[in-house]
Structures are given as structure tokens and as C-alpha cells.
């Protein structure tokens, strides 16, 4: 029997039991669409975080106390403002070093309240982080030195506190202290996890007094180019470890952060896909089960076909093709639902979703594979039936 013939026979058999075929397919449909959907969400999250980290500005080196590791508690910082000058000298450009000490604080104005990440920084931030302003200006070196109480608002904060009113020149209250608004940031888009539009920047000196601390949390150094960035990285750490004997410091580049974040999100995607794959497995068992029932129901048909000259492999092929057809059609429907669902989620929910080209291709291959794997046992049983016994079956 040729393949085309087996295909026609299988199609007829599935059509004859439309409802049962559909119910059997649902297991595969759910499994495949779940895999496609969850992989899309995982990939989307990865892409978004990568864009976000890239958006921080090119050639950045972040310097933090202790070890830079995801999941480890941040070390107590002993970094101080003078380290800006130290690292500026190491980098050969005093304007290339930005500093931050931050805390979550309520910001109020005229009965409106916004909860913001208040970051104490220095005047180099717009240059180091490529952070454009929508209106007004960023604070100056003099503002930092004189501990002036001025603030630059993120777009969300400005919107919450002032609505459509121009905030420039107005006052906001941060932890009970009045600050004058001198600028607003351009919208950097709503992002995953941390909303950078909910930031308020104030001079680091003012922030230290406000929070009652004299430490700083971290430094960022903008390298002139990606070339030689590792050398600079090592020299920055060396300079700090010379100054603070017995302390450990880390410097990481944006590329390294991207790598680490990418690994974590790949793992997340893999875990999501594995969970979805379990439902695909269950779907496969369902196919196997129904095929066994089908073989039993059609025992007489198998006996007849054998009497008329069907060989073992003809019968095996017939039932294997039927199982593969079942999972493949289910797989295609599942892919359609998964891709459609991903597009809907991407458009209408806060979660990003990204269909990688390989995910539907892989899902299709897996559907065919599930058909083969779970179809073989019933098909072999059919092929091995003794025609004498099979023809006697009622």
C-alpha cells in the first residue's frame, strides 16, 4: 500500500469519528498551543529586558560593592562621593562617572501622591545614561555642591502630581521636604518590572541628607568605547580595592548583565516550555489510548484487509498514519491558537510576547513525533493481529 493510499484511508477513518477525533486532538491542541504561547511570553520577556538594559546607554560599567550576583543580598556600601573623582581619574574623564543612592519615597503635591524611586545623582547622568529630558533642564554641578533642593520628575510622577499643568518651577514634597521642579524626563516607555518613568532625580548631596545617610549605592562609568572595556573594568575595581583595603568591589558591563539576564530568562522559558510539554505528553497518551480503542473496534476490518492481501506493514502503516494525522492536525491547530494567543497577549496585556521563528517549526515537528511515538504501539498491535482470529471477532 502506498503512502497516499494510507493517508486517504486514515482521513476517512478520522472523518467517520469526527467527535472522537476532535476530542482526542484537544489534548495535542492544548499542549502545542501552551508550548508556543509560553515560549512566546518567555522570549518576549527576554527581549524586553534586553532592550531595557541596552536603553541604559552604551559602554556602561556598573561599579558596586561586594560581589555582583543575581540572587545575593546587596552588600553594605562604603562607597562615598569622593569616589566619583577617583574613578573619573581612572577613566580619564571626570564627566563619565555617575553616582546613585536611591530609596522609595512618597512624593506629594496639592493632595496628590505618587510613590517614586527617589534617586540622588550627579550632573553627569543625562550624558552617562543617555537620558533625554522632555522639558526644563537637569541639575548642575553647582546644584550638587550646594545641596540645592531641586528635582527632575519621571513622566509618570509628573502626570500623577500635575496632570496637564506645567510642573516647571512648582514645588513637590519628598518625605516632608520641599523641592523645586526644574525638569521632566522624556517618556522611556512602560517597562517590565521597574518603571523608570516613576523615578525622581535630586542632587545626591540633597538625597543623602534627606535619607540620613552618607553612603552611595553604586557608580556608573561610561567607557569611551567597547574596546578595552575589560581593562578599564579591572582598573576601576583595583583603584577601589586599593582605597578600601579588605573590601571587595565588582564592575560589570552592560554586556555581562545582558548575558546573565539572558541566561535567567532562557531558563525561565525552558521551564515554561517543559511545563507545557507535560500537557503535550498527556495529549499523546490520549492519542495512544484512542488508537488502541480504534484497533479493537476495527479488528474485523483488519482481518479482512489481511485476508485480501494486506501485509503486516500495510496495516501498521495505516494506523500509524492515522495517529500521525491526528497529532499533526492537532499540532497545526495548536500552533495557530498559540500564535494567535501570543499576538493577543502582546497587544492587549502588559506581558510582552514574541514568536520566535523556531517555535512553531519545533512545535510542528514535536506533534509529528508525538504521533509516531504514541502511534507505534497501537499500530504494531493492529499489524500483528492474526487474520483468522480477527475475522471471527464480532
Amino acid at each position, binding site marked *: 500500500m502506498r503512502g497516499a493510499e494510507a493517508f486517504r484511508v486514515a482521513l476517512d477513518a478520522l472523518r467517520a469519528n469526527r467527535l472522537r477525533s476532535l476530542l482526542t486532538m484537544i489534548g495535542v491542541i492544548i499542549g502545542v498551543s501552551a508550548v508556543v504561547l509560553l515560549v512566546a511570553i518567555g522570549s518576549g520577556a527576554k527581549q524586553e529586558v534586553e532592550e531595557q538594559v541596552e536603553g541604559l546607554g552604551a559602554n556602561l560599567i556598573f561599579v558596586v560593592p561586594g560581589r555582583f550576583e543575581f540572587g545575593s543580598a546587596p552588600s553594605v556600601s562604603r562607597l562615598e562621593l569622593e569616589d566619583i573623582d577617583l574613578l573619573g581619574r581612572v577613566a580619564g574623564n571626570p564627566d563619565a562617572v555617575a553616582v546613585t543612592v536611591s530609596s522609595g519615597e512618597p512624593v506629594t503635591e496639592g493632595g496628590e501622591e505618587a510613590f517614586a524611586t527617589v534617586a540622588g545623582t550627579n550632573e553627569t547622568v543625562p550624558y552617562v545614561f543617555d537620558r533625554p529630558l522632555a522639558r526644563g533642564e537637569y541639575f548642575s554641578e553647582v546644584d550638587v555642591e550646594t545641596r540645592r533642593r531641586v528635582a527632575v520628575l519621571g513622566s509618570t510622577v509628573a502626570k500623577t502630581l500635575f496632570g496637564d499643568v506645567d510642573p516647571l518651577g512648582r514645588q513637590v514634597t519628598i518625605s516632608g521636604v520641599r523641592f523645586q521642579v526644574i525638569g521632566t524626563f522624556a517618556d522611556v516607555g512602560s517597562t517590565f518590572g521597574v518603571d523608570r518613568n516613576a523615578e525622581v532625580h535630586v542632587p545626591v548631596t540633597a538625597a543623602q541628607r534627606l535619607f540620613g545617610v552618607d553612603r552611595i549605592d553604586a557608580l556608573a562609568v561610561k567607557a569611551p568605547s567597547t574596546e578595552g572595556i575589560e581593562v578599564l573594568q579591572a582598573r576601576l575595581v583595583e583603584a577601589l580595592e586599593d582605597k578600601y583595603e579588605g573590601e571587595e568591589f565588582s564592575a560589570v558591563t552592560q554586556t555581562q548583565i545582558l548575558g546573565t539576564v539572558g541566561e535567567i530568562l532562557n531558563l525561565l522559558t525552558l521551564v515554561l516550555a517543559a511545563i507545557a510539554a507535560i500537557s503535550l505528553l498527556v495529549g499523546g497518551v490520549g492519542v495512544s489510548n484512542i488508537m488502541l480503542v480504534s484497533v479493537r473496534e476495527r479488528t474485523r476490518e483488519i482481518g479482512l484487509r489481511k*485476508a*485480501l492481501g494486506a501485509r*503486516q506493514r500495510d496495516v501498521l502503516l495505516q494506523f500509524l498514519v492515522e495517529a500521525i494525522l491526528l497529532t499533526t492536525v492537532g499540532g497545526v491547530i495548536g500552533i495557530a491558537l498559540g500564535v494567535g494567543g501570543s499576538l493577543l497577549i502582546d497587544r492587549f496585556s502588559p506581558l510582552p510576547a514574541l514568536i520566535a521563528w523556531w517555535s512553531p517549526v519545533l512545535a510542528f515537528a514535536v506533534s509529528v513525533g508525538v504521533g509516531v511515538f504514541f502511534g507505534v504501539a497501537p499500530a504494531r498491535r493492529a499489524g500483528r493481529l492474526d487474520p483468522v482470529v480477527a475475522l471471527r471477532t464480532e
Partner: protein
Amino acid sequence: MTTTESTSYSARTALPAVEAVEVTRSYRLEGLSVDALRGVSLRIEAAEFVAVIGPSGSGKSTLMNLFGCLDRPTTGTLRVGGADVSALSDAALARLRNETIGFVFQSFQLLGRTSALDNVALPLVYRGVRRQERRRRAQQALAAVGLTHRAGHRPTQLSGGEQQRVAIARALVGEPRLLLADEPTGNLDSHTGAEVMGLFEQLNSERGVAVVVVTHDLDVAERAHRQVHVRDGLLERDQGGPRR
């Protein structure tokens, strides 16, 4: 024991359709050995019309399964269309069935969701004949049993007699040397049964197909030219002989 060993085969140039020498067949049923056939020697010439008669449990069904190459003898030699059945693989037996034998069953054994035409064409599927050619030959076979006008009907839309004629057309389509019919009239009224037997007679005389009909109906058996009686796994009587 009466066998056809004594029949002169100088008269025939063609190979015998079936040749059984001391064939036995035993089964194991729940640990017990059951001897369904206990040494049967029988020769059926090409173009013979034979009835196999016997009560249920006599071994006649086992004999038919062996003649039909659905089964192999436990001991003894069985040749169907000249081929030694014991020496053939399962795949080779399937091919032998496909090319040499046409089956007609008591319960018709038609595929319910398939048209009469496609039912008739089924054996050709396993011979690798192309679809168009299959349909052409199936049409001819249906014409031979007088059912051209029913080609597109499904078995459920046909009467019992018509269904059995479709089954006969299916048995014919591959141009077999041997037609095996197991109680072909068992599910039909006597009038329709007689029609079916008439069809067998016609095929036997016009096409030279050897026909073996298993039955317990003596009226049916009378229409064959030779009657082989089976009892307790042995040949009891062998009456008549090849038509001259």
C-alpha cells in the same frame, strides 16, 4: 481414507489449485492441545467446483483457513497454487492470498463507510494498482455480478443478496485461481442463496476459477460437482469428481 491421490493427473496440464498431503492442525487452548485436523489429504484441481460439508467443530473452518493461506499446517504439506504454504513468510502468504485467492464470507465483510465500487477495488490496493485502474477493474467485476447500477451505494443501502454479490465481485477483481466461500448463503434466504450459487457456477464454468464452498446445507452442496465430507478432523467421504 478416500483421497484424490488416485485421480490421474495426466489429464490436466495446469497445477492443482490446492494440494494437501497428510495435513494436521493443532491448537493450544488454555493449555490443552486440540487437534482440529488429524491428517487430511485432498487435491482440488484447477476449475473444480467443490463443496466441503460437515457439522460445526468438524474442522472444515480450519481447512478453509489453511486453503485460504490465513494459517499454516502443524504438520504435513499444503500447496496452494503450487506454492508450499509452510515455506512462505507472512508477507509472501499475504501476496499469495492477494494474487491467488478470492474470499467470500458468510457475513459479507464489506467496509461499511465505503462504496460498493471501492469495496470491490480493495484487494487491488494491496497489489499496488493505481486508483484509476482499480476503479476500472472494479466496475468490470461489478458488471460481472450484475451490480453496475449499485457502484456508488454503500453496503447499508444494499439488500443481503446484493451485498454478497458485491463481496463476490471483490473476490473476483484480482482474477484469482481459487474462490473460497465460507457459508456464502448462510445469511440469505433460499431464493437469494440459489442466485448466489448460480453465480458461482457461472464463474466456475465461464472463467475456470476453482470454487470451494463450505456449507452445512445439503441443497447448496448438491449444486457443486464434488462433495467432500469432513468429520472429527478427517475426510469422511469424497463424492463426485472433477467435471469432465
